[in-house]
């Protein structure tokens, strides 16, 4: 049986892992410094993380250079799948990260600006390599709108429609981040997660809102997500990856216990 995945996410700023409370707070100076990305990666590797996401929150050329170094150092010591995102705008940017040791590339704003980047990446590296990350915000009783630029810019796109289009263009995985829930620790948005998971044939990773172990179980069971991604819950030592997995296993969810 394939296991549901538990994925710590490391937001990297100037070579350090940081964590803002909610979208936009980081820019206002509300970052909390969490530590060295490679040290954290090693800790989560020990705890049995199924995968790790490195996210460059500066999304700049300088940030990319820093990230190549972070990924190389992490890949030298952690023999596990690594995903890199943030500010990757071309097939060349993607290749630099893959050569550094990344397995998957996550794109968000650049895919919204140039949807063809999804197709180009999938043709060059295979669909399994291209993750499209979607920041969605509830915009009505039955509508979720896609935002770009770290949740700052409304796009007018419907989240379910954009997910389907991204998959049609070649995305091999969708990360769904709920803007409303992100950083609140009040639980994932189960409705939109399930809707997208049932609308696309590729795996869906739920992100944003994990505060308790029960939230993780809910989004895998009711939300039909294939994986859960979380940051704060792990960084601040509330739970280890092992804690999460043992809890999920107790709920009858198939996980890989290290």
């Amino acid at each position: 049986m394939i296991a549901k995945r538990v994925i710590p996410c490391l937001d990297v700023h100037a070579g350090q892992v940081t964590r803002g409370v909610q979208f936009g707070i980081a820019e206002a100076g509300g970052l909390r410094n969490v530590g060295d990305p490679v040290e954290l990666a090693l800790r989560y590797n020990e705890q049995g993380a199924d995968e790790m996401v490195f996210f460059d929150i500066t999304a700049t050329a300088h940030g990319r250079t820093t990230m190549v170094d972070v990924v190389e150092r992490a890949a030298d010591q952690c023999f596990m799948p690594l995903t890199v995102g943030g500010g990757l705008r071309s097939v060349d940017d993607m290749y630099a990260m893959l050569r550094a040791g990344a397995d998957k590339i996550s794109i968000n704003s650049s895919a919204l600006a140039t949807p063809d980047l999804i197709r180009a990446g999938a043709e060059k590296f295979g669909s399994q390599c291209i993750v499209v990350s979607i920041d969605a915000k509830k915009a009505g009783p039955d509508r979720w709108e896609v935002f770009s630029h770290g949740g700052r810019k409304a796009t007018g796109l419907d989240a379910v429609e954009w997910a389907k289009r991204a998959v049609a263009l070649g995305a091999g995985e969708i990360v769904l981040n709920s803007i409303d829930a992100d950083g609140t620790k009040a639980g994932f948005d189960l409705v939109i997660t399930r809707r997208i998971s049932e609308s696309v044939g590729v795996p869906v990773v739920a992100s944003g809102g994990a505060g308790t172990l029960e939230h993780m179980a809910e989004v895998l069971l009711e939300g039909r997500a294939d994986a859960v991604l979380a940051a704060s819950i792990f960084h601040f030592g509330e739970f280890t990856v092992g804690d999460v997995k043992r809890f999920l296993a107790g709920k009858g969810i198939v996980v890989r216990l290290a």
Partner: protein
Amino acid sequence: MIALIDYGSGNLRSVEKALRHVGAEVQLVAHPDGLQDARAVVLPGVGAFDDCINALKTQELLEALRVFIRTGRPFLGICVGYQALFERSEEFNSRAPGLAIFPGSVVRFPAQPGFKIPQIGWNQLELVKPDCPLYRDIPNGSFVYFVHSFFPQPVDEAIVATRTDYGVSFASSVWRDNVFATQFHPEKSQTIGLQILKNFVELAK
């Protein structure tokens, strides 16, 4: 020395690091000459079947690999490097003939409710051949990391070393003589994966 075939595959560095981690002396080889003194070969791969075959052909490695395998020295193919050992792929628009070391073709997972394609994540190995040297000290049911939409269907069931269930039961690795190949990524499968690579490296000593 283990020759790691360098033809632009994205997971090259990860495979190199993992092999070195388990004590192998590794050399990146982009030209047939590099196979001469190799005690073993590892063929990595991610992405499309045709890209792999065409790149190997351009670098004159396709025939060189066939010759190497015939010498009986240890060979390990990973992911697309596993698929390349078969005759052909049913990947969209695929035209390139594979290495044809084993009869059979590479097929896509059938669409089934509840099974997302690609298969991305950790799935279990059913050891069909527990005596396969690659799986020394590997418990039955171990989780390893997969990321793929296609898998080979060997005509000869006798070469199947492990099976994995993802809606269908597929050959997640094969073994014949000194030829080993895995659909999963040992270089990304943490402790279990490193043990599998270590077992291969032992064969090359």
